[in-house]
Structure formats: structure tokens, C-alpha cells
């Protein structure tokens, strides 16, 4: 029972969201079974659709990791989107800027530069917080706008492709993260990143310091941990993860940097992290679930004539239920809610 509990809340949230989604489908005149059937069909039925699901899940894992990781230090990184586009454009720049490099050097180099660019971008918010006390939610949101404008400008000026479109040139073939049959190699990178984050948090001194700061910053300071250093390091690593997500998307899916190529990817990270309860390994199934819905969404439109926005609604519902555990807990055990209300005090009528 105890072991099941952390998993139970997200599972119930997903179940409730799918259930309500079915009702919405029915009310809007569609056949929920047919629609969900199409969703599965479009995401899990063949090697090719599974490959699409993994491909969609890859940047979601990275974005989810970025949010979850920062959260372990008590930081709310809303800037995944900005870090992701910065990572994307820098990996593209390395990808098209060098010719004649062997794959084994070029692709990892582009990925690394993209990730580092994301780290640099993320650490700005960390430095502002550590030195000026500026709240990271505010600064990361502002930095998102700065990042979007900066990348737009880069893609339409110094790094612009020939032709009329504002976008970078295609990256060299040697910089691509290839498909392996229909299996996107980038997915392996994302899984490795999840395991790496878990290891870092649970097994290293830095991770211990990050968790300590997140759980009780005052006590961490009292035992001599430099909270400022941890805030900056955490935001840098969080940005690194998001930036790597942008790089993988650029090198593995798009093949270049196009403004707007991934609007919203960064924000999905918040949903994923919540579903995963900020556990770096939990991010993988959470991202696969959302990835499958995105991959299957178009099939649903095609086969069941349902607007693909229904998947957005279901995602929003999951977020709602995970973020308001009381609803789920009520579903899970009425007992606990009774206990909660007991403590609410006396005298009020």
C-alpha cells in the first residue's frame, strides 16, 4: 500500500482525466471508444507509430526533467521554453556551421553546445536569484520572451538561411541524431539523462545539497551549504536539460532551427514533472503518456473525426487532478479527507 501510494495519485489523475475526456467526447457527439481506439492506433499500433510516440516523448522527457530537477531544490523553472529554444538554435548553428566533421564528433558537439547554451540561459535566472533575490518564476518568464526574440533575430539575421523564410540552414548530415529503423536515437539520450539526474540527486554530494536546500534552505545554510551556489548550479543544470531537449529536437526531428518549431514544448515540462511527482525516472512514463496522446491525436481526427484539441483538454484535466491531490485523494480514500477536515478547527459554522 505504502509503496503504491506515490504512483496511485498520478494514475488516478490520468484515469479521471480520460474518463471525463470520454464524457466530453460523447457529449460532443463522437464515440469515445472509437476515438480512444484511434488514439491508441495512432500511437502504439505499429513500429512506426511507436517510433513517433518515442520521438514526441523525447523533448517532453527533457522538459519534464528540467522542471522536476529544479523543483528538487525548491525552484520553479518556468523558463524551459526559453532554455529549449536557445539550446535548439545553438545546436543548429554548430550543426550547419561546421563541414566535414565525422558524425561521432559533430553530432555530440552540437548537442553539447546546445545543452551548454541552455545551461547558460538557465543560470541567468539562478544568478539573479542568488545575488539579487529576484524570484525565479518572474525572471524565467521574462527570459522566455528575451530568448524567443533573440532566437528570432538570430534566425532572421546572422544565421539566416538563403531564401525568404526566417530560419537557419539545415544542419549537416553529420550533425543529425538519426533514426534507428523507426526508433529515434534521441530517446536513448533522454532516458540516459533521466537516469543521470536520478544518480546525481540520490548518489552525489551535489544532489544531496540540492535536495537539502529544497527541503529546508535554512537548515542547509546553517550546516554550511552555500545556498547561492546551489541555486545557480541547479538552474544551470535545469537549463542544460531543457537546452539538450531543444538540441535533440533540432538534430533529431527538424534538422534546422525554425522559429516557433516547438511552441509549448517547454511548458509541457510542467505537466510532465507534476505527473511524475518530480521524480526523474517518473518523468519517462509521464512523457510517454503525453507523447502517445500527441502522436495519436492526428489519427483520432482522421479516424474518429474528433478535433485533436481533445488531447489538450485531457492533458489539462490531468494537470488539474495532479495539482489538486485532494480531489484524487477523496477518490482514493474518503477517510483521509475526514481527517483533514477535523483539523480545520472549531467554532466556524
Amino acid at each position: 500500500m505504502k509503496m503504491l501510494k506515490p504512483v496511485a495519485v498520478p494514475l488516478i489523475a490520468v484515469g479521471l482525466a480520460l474518463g471525463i475526456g470520454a464524457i466530453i467526447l460523447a457529449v460532443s457527439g463522437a464515440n469515445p471508444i472509437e476515438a480512444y481506439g484511434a488514439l491508441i492506433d495512432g500511437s502504439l499500433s505499429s513500429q512506426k507509430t511507436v517510433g513517433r510516440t518515442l520521438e514526441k516523448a523525447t523533448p517532453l522527457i527533457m522538459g519534464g526533467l528540467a522542471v522536476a530537477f529544479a523543483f528538487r531544490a525548491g525552484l520553479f523553472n518556468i523558463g524551459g521554453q526559453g532554455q529549449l529554444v536557445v539550446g535548439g538554435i545553438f545546436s543548429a548553428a554548430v550543426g550547419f556551421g561546421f563541414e566535414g566533421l565525422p558524425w561521432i564528433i559533430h553530432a555530440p558537439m552540437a548537442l553539447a553546445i546546445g545543452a551548454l547554451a541552455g545551461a547558460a540561459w538557465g543560470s541567468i535566472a539562478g544568478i539573479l536569484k542568488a545575488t539579487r533575490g529576484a524570484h525565479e518564476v518572474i525572471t524565467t518568464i521574462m527570459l522566455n520572451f528575451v530568448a524567443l526574440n533573440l532566437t528570432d533575430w538570430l534566425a532572421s539575421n546572422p544565421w539566416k538561411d538563403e531564401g525568404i523564410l526566417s530560419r537557419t540552414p539545415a544542419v549537416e548530415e553529420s550533425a543529425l541524431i538519426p533514426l534507428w529503423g523507426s526508433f529515434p536515437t534521441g530517446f536513448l539520450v533522454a532516458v540516459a539523462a533521466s537516469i543521470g539526474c536520478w544518480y546525481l540527486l540520490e548518489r552525489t554530494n551535489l544532489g544531496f545539497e540540492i535536495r537539502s536546500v529544497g527541503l529546508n534552505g535554512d537548515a542547509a545554510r546553517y550546516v554550511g551549504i552555500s545556498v547561492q551556489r546551489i541555486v545557480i548550479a541547479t538552474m544551470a543544470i535545469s537549463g542544460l536539460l531543457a537546452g539538450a531537449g531543444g538540441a535533440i529536437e533540432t538534430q533529431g526531428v527538424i534538422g534546422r532551427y525554425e522559429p516557433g518549431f516547438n511552441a509549448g514544448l517547454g511548458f509541457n515540462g510542467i505537466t510532465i514533472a507534476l505527473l511524475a511527482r518530480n521524480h526523474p525516472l517518473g518523468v519517462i512514463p509521464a512523457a510517454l503518456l503525453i507523447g502517445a496522446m500527441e502522436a495519436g491525436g492526428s489519427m483520432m481526427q482522421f479516424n474518429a473525426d474528433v478535433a485533436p484539441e481533445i488531447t489538450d483538454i485531457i492533458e489539462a484535466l490531468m494537470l488539474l487532478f495532479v495539482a489538486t491531490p485532494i480531489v484524487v485523494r477523496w477518490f482514493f480514500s474518503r477517510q483521509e479527507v475526514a481527517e483533514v477536515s477535523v483539523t480545520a478547527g472549531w467554532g466556524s459554522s
Partner: protein
Amino acid sequence: MGVAESPALEVQGVTKRFGDVLANEDVGLRVERGRIHALLGENGAGKSTLVNIIFGLYQADTGEVRRNGEVLNLNGPRDAIAHQIGMVHQHFQLVPVLSVAENVVLGDEPTRHGVVDLDRAAAVVRELSERFGLDIDPKSIVEDLPIGIQQRVEILRALYREVDILILDEPTAVLTPQETNHLLNVLRGLADTGVAVVFITHKLREVMAVADEITVMRRGRVVGHTVPADTDESDLASMMVGRPVELRLKRTPASPGDEMLTIADLVVDDDRQTRALNGINLDIRAGEVVGVAGVEGNGQRELVEAVTGLRGVVSGSIILDGEEITGRSPRQISTMGVAHIPEDREKFGLIGAHTVADNMVLNRYHHRPYSRHGIRRPAAVDDEATRLVEEFDVRPPNIAAMVATLSGGNKQKVVAAREFSHDSKVMVAAQPTRGIDIGNIEFIHRRLIEYRDAGMAILLVSAELDEVLGVSDRVAVIYGGRIVSCEPAEGIDRDRVGRLMLSGADG
């Protein structure tokens, strides 16, 4: 029996189980009108459980509660109020942004034409406050009030509902000595008007000062019932703990060695950039305890934070065994040999969601053998934690438990075990026994003396005058950011120290 008037409240044979824990076992209690009934017991003895059953927050597994002879079946606090039973919890249940009057009447507001009549509420509250000497302005906003006054608002809430049984769960745990005295007077006044007061505490001095009757609990059972005239503090302590306890620490005279910590002309500001320490001079030798006595807020916190590197210094110097430590980071100072038991263990001393093991190495996880090249070595951490848990008798002895699940006394033992266990030259112990029970207080005091005898220099800061006088070799009194006196503890005049604490002058 039964012929005379039945008592205001009578508990018979109450048993309550939480999972494996038998929190109350066949408990009986008789509370008379107009009397203060002290319920005494160590943490975890089952006192809160018992009063929560009386108040209707918990249901007893077996047994009954009688009110004026009639069996009560309460289903929650509202029922209790309806039976004129009021309770002041350990954690207040006030709405911070509302005024005193609003908080008091909340849920039972006087109305005029269907609208809450705040003027009348304020008038009623003022009248009650004056009648019972509570001294509260009904218009002030609760969040602006100190804890002691907020507690009086809680008491007013109960009085407003005309309770004639008032239960207070460890009301003095959060109070300063002055506030405590005031509260005890208020309780006496209430009892004189006929209210039955149930007063939970584990402080013997208070019990002896104010109680009419005393019931002692241990491990879920009532182990004794007495009146102050028939007992004394050490008797009560032994009853609570279940073995003879030495209330007065047995100690040999100190044999001080070299100067270990030298504080010279130290000037420090507080968080609001106002002066907190105005040029403090203090030195502590190896093998002695220097106690700092003072009413809280006279610079003690800033002194401790400055010595441990947590707070910047405006001017002056702090020298540790010949080396200047002013301006160094907390980690450097800790590594150089200053250990620190912080005043608020939950907030500053522990990470509640970490395990006991992780908390035990919180100050040296980055050293060998607890980690190597930045990689943690859980086996080494567990070994050390197992050893410390045994040596400091942490209960339950489970190093994998989250620290937050331990009792206050055991939490404090974890902090003490950690801080004593690296070879420090100086120990800064701030309020090292606040809110923990007698057995554990005795334990921590003994440890302080043991380490003193092993040559440690100890700076003890405490709001409990008895603690400072009982443990220290020299006593410094701090007032208004200055040390106003520093003299040997031997033969010191308690009243004179008290006067110095309150006014900075002797007279």
C-alpha cells in the same frame, strides 16, 4: 460516592490505539469545578490524545467521558463547545488577517439586522478581556500580535462561548517566562470564577506554582495523582520518567585551560540593519561552560550567528584558538572547529524529510568516509548513524526513519549527536533543551558537562535561567546588546541575575 455533586468532567477507562501505538490505556481523570488540574507527562505520554478525546476530536476505543455525571458522546469540536468545553491547542487556530474581535466571535457572531455587529463584538471582547485581566485590544489584527497575546485570543474565543471547562495543551511551550507568569495568573483567575481548567505541561515549576491537582501520565497510562502539598519537583520528575531523575545536575568544578574563543568589541546588526550587539567582549576557555542569560531578543541570536559565521560582523573580532574567524563562511568555521546546536532545531537544525542517517552527517557528508570524490557512500553514513543513534539513545533506533517523525527530544538528540561527534574546539549551544522532556534535558546537560570535561569550550545560550545557572561555570547576562555582567556561577544570586536580565542594572 455519587451522592455528592458529580465532577465537572470525569474520564473512565479510556483506551485509544493508533495502529500499533497504545496512546491511552485505561485512563481515568476527574476534573472539578474551580480547580486547576495539571496533566503532566513527557512527550508521547498520551496527554494530547486524552484531551482530544475529551474535546471530541478523537473517539475513544473504549471507556467514557462524563460531563456533570452524564455520559458525553461528542462528534467533534462543535459538540464540545455546545457542552461548554473549550480548548486551546498547541497550534493556534486563528485567522491571521482578522482582528481580535472578529476571531473571537467567528462562527458565533452577534448580528444586527442580519449583519455582523462588529462594534458589539468588540465591546463584548473588551469586557471579557478586562474581566479576566487578559489585556487585549479587540481591534488589533491577530498577525501583528506576539505569540503570547495570540494565545490569549484563543482563550477569549473559549470564554466568549461561556465554557466552564477550559483545556490548554502545552500553552507555556511557546511563551517567554513573563508571558508564562501572566498566563498562570489568568488561569488562577478563571478557576476562581468556577471554571475547571485542564492544563497540560511538562514543566514542573509551573505545576507546583499553579496546580490544585496533578495527574501524571506515562506511556499512555495514568501513573499517579497527587496535590502540590504532597509532592515536590523531583518526585514528579521521577513519576513522569519512571526512574529517579536528578533535577540538579551533578558536576565537578571546571578546570579551564587555554582561551579557545575570544570575542572582542563585537558589533553586529540584526536583519533590519539596526544594532543588535553593541561591542561585546567575552572569552571562553577550554574546559568551561559560559552561559549567556537574558530575555530573548537582547542580541543572543545575533551573537550565536556571528560566532558561527551565519551573520556578518560590523566591527570587532572573533578569535578561535588564536585564529581570526571573523568574516569566514559557516562551513570554514565549522571545519576549523566550531560546532553549533541551533536554537530552533526544526527550522535550522534538521532537514525533516531527510532520514536520521542523513541528518547525522549533515555537517560532514562531504568528508571521507561519507563520500569520496563527490559520490556519497551510504554504507559509511549508515555505520556512523547507527553508532550515534546508539550512543545518544535516539528512539526509535531507526536510522532510515524520516527525522520529522521523531519526537522533539529525539530530534534534539540527533542534532546534539551530530554536533558533538566531530572534534570541535568550541560548541555553541543555543536553547539546547527547549521544548524537550526531563529525561532528555538531563541527558543533554550531562553530555555538555562530559564534553566540557574533555576540554571543549562551550557557549551556552538559553532563555531558561535555571538551565544557565545549572550548567554554566560562568554566567554572562546580556541586555540590550551588551554583556552587563559576567561572573562565576558558583554562589550566584538568582534574583540579582533576574534583575539584570530585565533592566540591565542591578537595582
